[in-house]
C-alpha cells in the first residue's frame, strides 16, 4: 500500500475525552432523574416488573439516566481527519463515573429535599408512594445506596467504550432486549407457540409480568450470542444479495417476495387476536404515513392537516355502505365503494391543494393545519348533521367480504390492511423512481429552480396532494369498516401530528423507514397501554433525540442522510473556497 500525502504528514494529537463535558452531561442526568421522579414516571413504572422480583421498570428508567450520561461522557469526540485516534482506557470510565456520580448526587439532594419540604401541592405526582420508592423505603441510607449505584451505572456507561465494537453492540443490545422482553410480556405470551406450551411462559415470566431471573439470563444470553455471531455477517449477506445480476437477481427477488408473502399470511395466525389488533391499528397508521411521506418526504410540502383526508375516506365509506346513513344509503360493499372513495379523496386533495399552491414552508403548514380542523368541525357540525350524523357519528358500517370470506375480526382485517400497505409501498417506490418523482424531488430542493427547469409546479403539487389524500382515505375507510362506526372525534389534529412524528422518526422519504417508524411507534404504545399518559412525552423525547442525533430518521433515504449529515463539512469547505475565489459578490 502506498502512503498518500495525508498519511505521511504528522498527525495532530488526539482529541481526548473531556472531563468538564462529563460535568455538564452529569448535570443533565441529574435534572433527568429529578424529572423522572417528579413526573410520576417512577411511581407508575415501579408497578411493572422487568426482572421479577428484583428490578422494576421504575428503577430501570431511573438508572438509565446515569448510564446514558456516563455513556455520552465517556465517548471520545469524533476523530477528525489529520488527528490521531484517541486512546481508550481509564479516562473513559473516569468521565462516565463523574457524570454518573453527579447525577447521583443531584438525585440524592433532591430526594432529601422532597422529604423535608412538601411540594406535593404543586407537583401532585410527588406522592408518599413516590417518596418511598425514592429511598428504597430505607430512609437516607436507601438514597445513598441509589446514588452510589448511579455513580457505578455511569462508570459502566463509560466503560462500555473500552469494549471492542462487536462486544459493545452485543452487550448494549442484550441489555436493551432484556428490558424490552420484560416490558412486552403481553407480546410474547400471546404468540401461538408460547400460548400452546405454557412451560415456556412459566420459565421466562414470573407471576408479575416481568421476566424471571432465569428468563432474563436466557434472553440476554440469546441476544448476546445472536449479535456477536451475526455482526458483519448480515451486512456481508446483504451486500452479496445486492450485487446479484440479471437472472439470479430476479430469482432472488421472487424468492424473498414469496417468503415475505407466506410470512405475512401466517403472521396474524401466529400472533393471535390481540396482537393482530395492534398490528391492524399500526397498519392503518402506516397507510397514512406512506401517504404523508409522498406529500412531505417526496414533494416537501409540509401538510399538518393530513387527518382531513383520513376523515374523508372514513365518512365516504360510511355514507356509501352503512344502512343507517342519514341522508342517502346506497349500501354498497367496501369494494364497490373504493372508486368513490378515491374520487372523493382526489377531490379533497385538489380542494386543499389549490388554495395553497403559492404558499411555501411555514405558511403552508399553518394553512393546512387550519384545513384539518375545518374538516373535523364540519363533520361535527349540526348544520351537516343530516349528512354526517354530527357528534353521534355514523354506525353500522358493514364488514368487508372477500369472495366467500368475511373480514370481521382483527385477524382477518390484517389481510386487507396489509395488502394495501404492500400496494402503497410499491406505488411509493414506483413513483419515486420516475419522471414524477424527480419533479417532486427537484421541487423539494428548490421550487423556483425546478419551475425554471420545466417542472409544472401546479401539477406536481396537486398530484402529491391527491395521491397522499388517496392513501389516507383508503386508510380511513379500512379503519371505519374495522371499527364499524365513525365519529368526528377520531380525526383530531393529534392524528396528523402523530403521523408526522412517525415519518420523521422513521426517516422522511424512505419507505422502509416510514414502515418501521409506524410499526414501532404505534404498536409499542398499544402494547404498553398502562403507561398511556406518558405516550406523548415519549414521542416528544424521541423526536428531540432524533433531531439532535439522527435528523435523517431511523432508516433514512440515501438522499436525506447526505443532506443532513455526511457532506456538511465538505459543503462548508466548498462554500468558503467559492467565496474566496469569487471576486464578484454573490447575487
Amino acid at each position: 500500500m502506498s502512503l498518500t500525502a495525508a498519511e505521511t504528514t504528522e498527525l495532530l494529537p488526539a482529541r481526548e475525552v473531556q472531563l468538564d463535558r462529563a460535568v455538564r452531561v452529569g448535570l443533565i442526568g441529574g435534572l433527568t432523574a429529578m424529572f423522572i421522579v417528579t413526573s410520576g414516571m417512577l411511581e407508575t413504572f415501579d408497578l411493572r416488573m422487568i426482572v421479577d422480583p428484583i428490578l422494576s421498570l421504575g428503577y430501570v428508567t431511573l438508572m438509565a439516566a446515569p448510564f446514558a450520561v456516563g455513556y455520552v461522557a465517556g465517548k471520545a469526540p469524533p476523530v477528525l481527519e489529520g488527528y490521531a485516534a484517541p486512546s481508550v482506557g481509564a479516562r473513559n470510565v473516569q468521565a462516565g463515573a463523574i457524570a454518573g456520580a453527579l447525577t447521583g448526587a443531584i438525585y440524592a439532594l433532591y430526594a432529601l429535599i422532597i422529604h423535608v419540604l412538601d411540594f406535593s401541592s404543586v407537583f401532585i405526582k410527588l406522592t408518599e408512594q413516590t417518596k418511598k420508592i425514592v429511598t428504597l423505603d430505607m430512609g437516607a441510607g436507601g438514597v445513598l445506596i441509589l446514588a452510589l449505584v448511579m455513580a457505578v451505572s455511569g462508570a459502566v456507561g463509560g466503560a462500555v467504550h473500552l469494549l471492542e465494537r462487536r462486544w459493545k453492540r452485543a452487550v448494549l443490545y442484550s441489555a436493551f432486549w432484556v428490558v424490552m422482553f420484560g416490558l412486552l410480556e403481553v407480546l410474547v405470551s400471546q404468540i401461538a407457540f408460547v400460548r400452546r406450551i405454557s412451560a415456556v411462559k412459566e420459565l421466562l415470566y414470573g407471576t408479575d409480568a416481568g421476566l424471571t431471573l432465569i428468563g432474563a439470563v436466557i434472553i440476554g444470553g440469546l441476544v448476546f450470542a445472536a449479535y456477536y455471531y451475526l455482526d458483519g455477517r448480515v451486512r456481508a449477506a446483504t451486500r452479496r444479495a445486492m450485487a446479484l445480476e440479471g437472472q439470479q437477481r430476479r430469482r432472488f427477488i421472487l424468492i424473498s417476495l414469496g417468503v415475505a408473502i407466506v410470512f405475512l399470511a401466517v403472521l396474524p395466525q401466529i400472533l393471535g387476536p390481540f396482537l393482530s389488533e395492534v398490528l391492524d391499528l399500526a397498519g392503518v397508521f402506516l397507510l397514512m404515513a406512506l401517504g404523508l411521506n409522498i406529500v412531505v418526504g417526496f414533494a416537501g410540502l409540509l401538510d399538518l392537516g393530513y387527518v382531513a383526508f383520513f376523515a374523508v375516506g372514513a365518512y365516504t365509506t360510511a355514507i356509501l355502505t352503512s344502512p343507517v346513513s342519514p341522508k342517502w344509503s346506497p349500501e354498497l360493499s367496501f369494494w364497490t365503494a373504493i372508486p368513490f372513495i378515491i374520487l372523493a379523496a382526489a377531490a379533497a386533495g385538489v380542494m386543499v391543494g389549490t388554495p395553497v399552491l403559492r404558499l411555501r414552508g411555514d405558511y403552508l403548514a399553518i394553512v393546512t393545519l387550519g384545513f384539518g380542523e375545518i374538516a373535523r368541525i364540519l363533520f361535527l357540525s349540526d348544520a351537516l348533521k343530516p349528512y354526517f350524523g354530527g357528534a353521534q357519528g355514523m354506525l353500522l358500517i358493514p364488514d368487508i367480504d372477500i369472495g366467500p370470506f368475511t373480514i370481521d375480526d382483527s385477524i382477518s382485517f390484517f389481510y386487507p390492511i396489509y395488502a394495501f400497505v404492500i400496494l402503497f409501498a410499491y406505488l411509493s417506490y414506483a413513483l419515486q423512481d420516475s419522471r414524477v418523482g424527480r419533479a417532486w424531488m427537484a421541487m423539494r430542493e428548490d421550487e423556483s429552480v425546478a419551475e425554471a427547469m420545466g417542472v409544472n409546479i401546479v401539477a406536481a403539487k396537486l398530484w402529491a396532494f391527491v395521491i397522499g389524500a388517496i392513501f389516507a382515505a383508503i386508510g380511513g375507510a379500512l379503519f371505519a369498516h374495522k371499527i364499524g362506526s365513525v365519529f368526528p372525534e377520531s380525526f383530531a389534529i393529534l392524528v396528523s401530528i402523530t403521523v408526522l412524528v412517525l415519518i420523521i422518526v422513521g426517516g422522511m422519504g424512505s419507505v422502509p423507514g416510514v414502515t418501521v417508524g409506524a410499526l414501532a411507534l404505534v404498536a409499542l404504545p398499544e402494547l404498553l397501554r398502562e403507561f398511556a399518559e406518558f405516550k406523548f412525552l415519549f414521542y416528544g423525547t424521541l423526536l428531540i433525540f432524533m433531531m439532535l442525533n439522527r435528523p435523517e430518521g431511523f432508516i433514512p433515504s440515501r438522499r436525506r442522510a447526505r443532506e443532513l449529515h455526511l457532506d456538511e463539512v465538505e459543503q462548508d469547505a466548498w462554500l468558503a473556497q467559492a467565496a474566496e475565489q469569487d471576486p464578484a459578490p454573490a447575487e
Partner: protein
Amino acid sequence: MALLEISSLSKAFGGLHAIDKLDLHVDRGEIVSVIGPNGAGKTTFFNVITGMITPDEGEIIFDGADLAGLRPNQILALGMARTFQNVRLFPNMTVRENVMVGRHTRTKAGVFGAILRTPAFRAEEEETKRKAEETLSFFGTRLVGYRFDQPALNLSYANRRRLEIARAMGSDPQLLLLDEPTAGMNPRETLEITGLIGKLRDEKGFTVVLIEHDMRVVKGVSDRVIVLDHGSKIAEGPYDEVAQNPDVIEAYLGRPATGTA
C-alpha cells in the same frame, strides 16, 4: 427574424429601476455578451425574460411567441433555458438526475405510466437517461462514469457550473442564457469554458446570451456585446468597438465597480 426581441422592457424594485426601457434583440445562431457594472440589472434581465420575475411593462417576443403571462416552465418549453449566477443545482439529486429533470418538458410520462411501468414509460425513461448521459459527455470525462451517480453537492465548484450548463442543455433549448459561467473559476478553467461556449453554438447549434465579467472571455466568444448600466443599454456592437466607447469606459471606471450586485 430575430429569435428574441425585447422592447421597452422595465422592472423596478421599489424606487430602483433595475431594468429601464430596455430594447434589444438576439438573432438565431449568435453569441451575445451582456456586460455592465455590478447592479446594472443583468441578472434581473435574465430573471424577467425567463418568467421568474414579472416585468412592469414591455414586450418579450421569443421565437415568434409573446411571453407575457407565461410561467417559467412554459418559457423553458418554448426553448429558453438558463443557468444561475450563484449555482443553483438540486444538490441531493445525482448528477444524472439533475440533467434528467432538465428534460422534464421534453418528456411526457405521468403518474399512471410510472405506476403501471408501461412499455412507453420504460422506453422514455431509458431515452431520458441516455440523453442525459450524452449531454454530460459534452464536458469530456469530467461528469461521466461514477460521477453519474454522485450527488451534485459532491462536485467541485467548477463541475457544479458545468453541471448547471448540462442541465440547461438537457431541455433541448434554442437559446441558452448563461449567467457568469466563469465566476469563481481559475484561469485554466475559464479558458476551457470559453472554448466550450463556442462549441455550444458551433456543435450543438444553440444561440447563446452570456453575462460575463471576465473581458477575455467576452472578447474571445462574442459576436456582439451589449453594455447595460442602470438597467438601460448604453452601448452595443462588436467587442473592440464597445471597448473604445467613452460611455462604457465611464460606466466601468467612473464609479467603483463593487456595488451591491
